[in-house]
């Protein structure tokens, strides 16, 4: 790893964070602050909010998608080094990745078959 290569990214991170924080500070000085209890209610198209949703539950489907995401994202992470070194790996690399993707596709087919990818039943 070549450190100077990553230095500009650090600069950019600092600069954009400073810009963001700076403009928030500036806005807090420039903007009015007349908070009322009605204004601070959570938005519900003008109705008085029915209940507090902070920490509320949401459908388990989203949880399943998150799990699947982790599996496939790790697969993507495996594919990148393989793709870069493909010229040196040759047929061996092709066979290896073919087996890997076949195993993954089997799991994928299973999830599909069991309805893990369905949103409307």
């Amino acid at each position: 790893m070549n450190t100077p290569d990553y230095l500009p990214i650090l600069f950019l991170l600092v600069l954009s964070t400073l810009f963001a924080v700076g403009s928030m500070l500036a806005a807090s000085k420039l903007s009015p602050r007349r908070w009322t209890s009605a204004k601070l209610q959570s938005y519900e198209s003008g109705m008085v909010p029915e209940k507090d949703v902070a920490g509320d539950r949401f459908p388990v489907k989203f949880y399943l998608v998150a799990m699947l995401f982790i599996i496939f994202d790790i697969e993507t992470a495996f594919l990148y080094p393989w793709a870069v070194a493909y010229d040196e790996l040759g047929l061996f690399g092709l066979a290896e990745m073919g087996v890997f993707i076949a195993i993954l596709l089997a799991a994928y087919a299973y999830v599909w078959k069991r309805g893990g990818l369905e949103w409307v039943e």
Partner: protein
Amino acid sequence: MSGIVDAIGIVVIIGAIKVIVAFVALLVVTLVVVWAERKIIADMQSRVGPNRWGPFGLLQTLADGMKLFFKEDFRPASADRWTYALAPVAAMVPAFLAFAVVPLGDDVTIAGREIDLVVTDINIGVLYFLAMGSLGVYGIVLAGWASGSKFPLLGGVRSTAQMISYEIALGLSLVPVVLAAGSLSMVDIVAQQADTVGNVTFFDGIPVLEQVADLFRYMPNWYIWSQWPAFAIFFISGIAETNRAPFDLPEAETELIAGFHTEYSGIRFAMFFLGEYIHVVVISAVAVTLFFGGWHGPGFDFLPWLWPLVWFMLKTTVFVYLFVWLRATMPRLRYDRLMWLGWKRLIPAALVWIMVTAVVNTPGISRNIRLAVFGALFLGVVTWVFRGDPRMKDIVTPQRRTTRGVA
């Protein structure tokens, strides 16, 4: 002066200057893109669009931005204080960071020093771009969660599911390009696309018609010719990544008020806005870089350093226009359709295309195998096209509902 230069190092100073230039340029570009989007969509809808501030209303975005500084920025009582305050920063900063690896032009020589027109050429550029895209999700999820309100919560949860789903397709769609280029550095990938396609023989030996061969000698050697399926997947998932229409489910106005930023006002809202538009510019720039030859284009003797920049900006503009055009044309997808497209179409398509690219790019593979792969692919696509719409087979009928519903 020289003391300072020696102490910090010229590399660091050049890096800092590049960063500042890129940052300011991105801000200005965002102002123009927002204006252009409003103007173009207004035109498509037979309206005038912004026309008050500056020539053709060019300063409208700046005026809006200034106004937002003076607008009250309140936090709902149910919100989580710090997460709510910092989520816009988390949404905006990664969008800026992602731009760092995009090469904007050829090397230029200033004061005897060769400078490459890219903020930084790291050897994992593509991976870095994907990582920054993933980090951008945090801002939206946290904003939705921290607002303590039902519409933002729904928008935030939806956008998590949507963005992580499309992120897989986005990541997979770039693997074939990396495979063909043999490098993750965007500068290398652009360098691979220099010149023209040149002399073409299909499958190592089948000659091409002379007239067609002539065409290839003038055709730029872009990855789009061989990697167009990858590009299609990349662009579709790129739109979903940026939360733009027709995939703007996280902020779907008609059902979720404004989704994850319902409770945001003033400058914090402006940051979400800024982040989204920079993301659009970055996706367009990366599409140009990876598939359309980056800054390559015809050069001329007059101001030779300028032309690459001009070509790059022109190509990027085309894609930004495409984003706007899509927004004006396409209706929003229903949520289950969106997930259907991502999980059941784009991801398998990307995986298949990776394997096809791998087979074709295997060193020393025989011509017959390549022909067989292309033949099989062609047959597959034809069957796919003529098989009819499978969704029509299992539409949820009232009858099926009753068999399961009444307990």
